[in-house]
């Protein structure tokens, strides 16, 4: 899309404004768990899944204490890894394929 650098900076601003990175969470941790995401989570390899659970536990603990992480530990926009994306894409593709077949 046009105006690449502008779009990037808007994205970065929005990411920081959303605030979940201050609790140590990544974007894929806060995805709404609909059926597709649930299925993709089942396919996550164990190490990635364990890290996700750790981050969520830490965030819940902080939220309980009404605290946030010190600034050095906030998740940076550049470091945020969309770890669930490949699995989610595959799940959605399979679902669309199934629906296309069933329509025939």
């Amino acid at each position, binding site marked *: 899309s046009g105006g690449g650098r502008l779009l990037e900076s808007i994205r970065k601003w929005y990411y920081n404004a959303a605030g979940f990175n201050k609790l140590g969470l990544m974007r894929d941790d806060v995805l709404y768990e609909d059926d597709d995401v649930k299925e993709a989570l*089942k*396919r996550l*390899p164990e190490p990635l899944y364990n890290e996700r659970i750790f981050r969520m536990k830490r965030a819940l603990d902080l939220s309980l204490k009404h605290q946030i992480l010190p600034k050095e530990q906030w998740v940076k926009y550049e470091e945020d890894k969309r770890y669930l994306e490949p699995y989610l894409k595959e799940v959605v593709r*399979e679902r669309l*394929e*199934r629906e296309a*077949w069933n329509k025939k």
Partner: protein
Amino acid sequence: KRLYSLKVAPKVAASAKVERVKLSPEAQDLEITKLPNGLVIASLENFSPASRIGVFIKAGSRYETTSNLGTAHLLRLASNLTTKGASSFKITRGIEAVGGSLSVYSTREKMTYSVECLRDYVDTVMEYLLNVTTAPEFRPWEVTDLQPQLKVDKAIAFQNPQVGVLENLHAAAYKNALSNPLYCPDYKIGKITSEQLHHFVQNNFTSARMALVGIGVKHSDLKQVAEQFLNIRSGAGSSGAKAIYRGGEIREQNADSLVHAAIVAEGAAVGSAEANAFSVLQHVLGAGPLIKRGSNVTSKLSQGIAKATTQPFDASAFNVNYSDSGLFGVYTISQAPNAAEVIKAALNQIKAVAQGTITDADVTKAKNQLKATYLMSVETAEGLLNEIGSESLVSGTHTSPSDVAQKIDSVATIDVVNAAKKFVSGKKSMAASGDLGNTPFLDEL
């Protein structure tokens, strides 16, 4: 003076050859080619409306090691998992949509993936078949979901006591390779990983160990497909260990009132000179009832055992041939209290043959039975595909049924007697299951 023409008017050739209208092209002979990378392609164009294509691979349970027992079993069940070209869903629905079917069949030595469909849809199912055999992905979550299926498969198979006895028999008779069970051992269910499946496929599904066989397809089509797609993994892969016969016994005591017992000695390998002799001997002794639900009166085993006991029993000669070894012996089913008499009577019958008490008429009768069984088995497309595939895999050639019949005929009575002598003098293996209180041990026989 009459002038006769010098040239006589040419006689119209009576009945010029009437062009016979061909209703269907004549069936062609089987064509077999061996590609430079070792792949064997065989096809028989019989112009039938349904086609059958099979990929035969030297990848049975004998190629497992103790660290990955059960991989072949899981692989057998994993034929419908996602591949690089099609998801699991697509394979199932796609094959169903054209009315075809994909089945996997595996023995200790080979795996067979076969598809059958109407001729017009051969391309579609061929694509799925190639995907399944050459490019499976074994996604970890799909493999995990499949593991409970191992239990179900095993439970269904072991409903039949024969399966258990034969597994034990192989485990007792061989030290390695052929002693591996066909069904996944219990301790391995749930523990076979996707990497192990990949490893097994990488090592065993190589071009040199495959045969692509088609019935009702053109040879050129198969060849093109094979050259394009089945070329990815070349080389001979890891060679299996040579099966070492050791001879032992395994007894499984359970509450069954019928005792199933199998006593064997080392037999002949596929294609060896003695293989046919052992098959003829098997039919001399009795290889299953020829009339359904009949009492199998003509089998020598039945006659001998009937003199020893009045209780119901069943006995047949047992003969298997593998690529480097074989087993020959008897399989008896008897009531628990008189298992000993039945087994001893059965073995005495074989001893009688070894001492030369059979007549030429017996041998001829057995040869006819053997020929009939063989010819009837290759009458169906499934049997024929299996037969062509097995032979292509082992030797890269094809023996026509008439040649096979000839070879059977060339077995002499002395060969049969020698085969029986080999059994009598060979080291025995035994497997038994049931209430074994009255079943003799090997050293008591």
